[in-house]
């Protein structure tokens, strides 16, 4: 086998879930998922990297047989190989181990692995496992003269430009749309059997044993801590808090309200009324 191995690790999204906001009951929604936007962007990046590095593109996912469809499309769009990993990893580290062992067994150690940035901590663990350079949350990923370059988002709008040596683990934001497979390739891929690997990954055991999890409950925001206004007397602090400066809930003399107006016009009335009341609009009447 020649050339570098460039791997797109696609997350299989599984069924969409909805959580009942009263009871916290989790139920799965109808309809079948496909690759996520971030996963598809990873795939397109992998095609481009494989082209400019003269390497082989492999698309891999951990997922059930329904995920074959997604891999078939990857094959039709230009992946040289695909691989479906059947495993039920207990956590992101186990997922990274399963991916690595499956890829290594069939195609040797990967040189570049690109995830969508919806892959949780799996890329971080994979980089740790393989001692690879990690570049996550990329807006751009390019290969110039055999060197990977990336533009990564930091917080507060800052960007970091990276030079990424191989082997590398990257994750990309869904900024690229994938190429569309040609019809002949689609037809050819339909008859391809998707290779399945069931890696024998020992469940990673922490010295402390498995993590216990409660049943899910409905999301409730935490109370937010508001800075105490600067004033000497308690009464002044309370006035400052309740004068609409500094406290959401206290500002309008009541707790937050949720209303269901009869139509859009009534809804707009409510918005305008609120904005007027809080001084964002002049008198509108």
């Amino acid at each position, binding site marked *: 086998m020649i050339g570098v191995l460039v791997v797109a690790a696609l997350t299989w999204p599984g069924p969409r879930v909805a959580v009942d906001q009263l009871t916290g009951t989790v139920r799965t929604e109808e309809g079948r998922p496909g690759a996520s936007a971030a996963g598809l962007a990873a795939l397109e990046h992998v095609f481009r990297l494989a082209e400019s590095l003269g390497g082989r593109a492999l698309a891999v996912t951990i997922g059930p047989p329904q995920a074959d469809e997604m891999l078939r499309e990857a094959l039709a769009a230009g992946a040289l190989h695909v691989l479906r990993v059947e495993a039920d990893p207990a956590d992101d580290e186990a997922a990274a181990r399963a991916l690595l062992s499956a890829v290594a067994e069939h195609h040797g150690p990967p040189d570049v692995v690109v995830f969508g940035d919806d892959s949780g901590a799996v890329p971080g663990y994979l980089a740790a496992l393989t001692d690879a350079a990690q570049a996550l949350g990329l807006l751009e990923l390019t290969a110039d003269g055999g060197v990977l370059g990336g533009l990564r988002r930091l917080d507060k709008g800052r960007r970091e430009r990276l030079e990424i040596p191989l082997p590398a683990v990257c994750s990309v934001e869904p900024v690229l749309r994938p190429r569309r497979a040609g*019809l002949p390739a689609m037809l050819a891929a*339909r008859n391809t059997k998707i290779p399945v690997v069931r890696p024998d990954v020992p469940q990673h055991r922490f010295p402390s044993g498995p993590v216990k999890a409660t049943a899910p409950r409905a999301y409730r925001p935490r109370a937010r801590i508001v800075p105490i206004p600067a004033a000497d007397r308690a009464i002044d602090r309370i006035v400052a808090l309740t004068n609409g400066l500094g406290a959401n809930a206290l500002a309008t003399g009541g707790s937050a309200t949720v209303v269901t107006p009869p139509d859009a016009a009534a809804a707009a009335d409510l918005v305008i009324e609120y904005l007027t009341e809080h001084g964002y609009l002049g008198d509108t009447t």
Partner: protein
Amino acid sequence: MPEHAGPGTTSTVVAATPQRAVDVVVVGAGPAGSAAALEVARAGHSVVLLERGPYPGSKNVYGGVVYGRVLDELVPRWWEQMPVQRWVTRRSTMIMTPTQALTVDFRTQAWAGPPYNGATAHRSDLDGWLAGLAEKEGAVLVPSTVATGLLRDTAGAIVGVRTDRPDGDLTAKVVIACDGVNSFLAKEAGMFAGKPTGHVTLGVKETLRLPRSVIDERFGVAGQDGVDIEILGCTRGIPGGGFVYTNLDSLSVGVVVDPHGLAGKRLRPEELVADLKRHPAIEPLVRGGELLEYSAHLIPEGGYDTMPELVGDGFLVAGDAAAMCLAAGIWLEGVNFALGAGMYAGRAAVDALKVGDTSKTGLASYRRMLDESFVLADHRKLRRVPGLVLGQRMQESYPAMLCDLAQGLFHVDNPQPKPGLLKLVRRTLKRHGIRTRDVVSDALTGVRSFG
């Protein structure tokens, strides 16, 4: 976005050699398309099934009532595999005014066991299952692919389709258009030439989630038994009707109405559904349901007289694409007609391939099979029914009249003695300005259609 490119309007002329990429291309993996592909594949011919959605049934997740009898011919013991929500064992026809409702309720346990009658099913499940059957026989399903136009040879015969994918031309000996209502392919093939413009009705539907036990209790059913309620008089006089179906843990509630009637009354279709959900006879059934899906879709309802040509050189049309849906007030059957038509289209293509003649003549057995089967027989028989059911009397006068009649019958007005039935009928007809002559004429149309 190229994946949503609209269909082309003019065919591409190609220099066609007798060599084609595949024997048959079926466009649209709905019930019609999957049935067609299944029959072709079963006979050992190569067939490609194109679907614009990411998977069959993706455009409409929740469904309605499917009558499976036609499947007897297609899938032995289909009821053991079909993804069914509930088997319909109770069928109610409800006639209502804003404050009244008269229901004819029929229940039979005969429909709760093989060979069954109607079933509620989710479209994504049903369409996926049907397409899967075709794939198992060797049909090649290509999702996320739109047929954008037809390929013709210099003589005008259809020799394949163009798709929105790169290198997207696909040549075939036969193209079967199962692309649903407003079929661009049938139009492009000129099949509608000289036909009256197709009537369409608008179907709108809400799916409401309710716990299974609540549905069982409210509808008086148990296990996998289900209910189908068809409703007349719930559309504010706009030609159409309504329905309530039970799925396992959700209800489908909707109306099927004339879009022109809606426009005329400046109503939005969801207002009619909201009306229906508020009706005193319906509200206790749907109360507390959580909205899961809202869908609106056009349905061809012109019936027999508006169907296109069904056969061309290298070309067949089946299902909604050929206006084969029966949608008139209390009827909403399309899947069974689509399955039947698709199956016969597949068989006709096989016949034609066998003798090596896929011209209009070679494919003529399609029309013959349709004529001899329920597909066209029912449509011929019921050709006047849309006019009857959707007419003003059936929509407005009769529901009100029948409800008043029932109210008169059951209203106890002591110390007045009960009125005689005939007198009651005459009085009610008069009050509603209905002439006996019209009643007789409508009854005759009804008897001719259903007798």
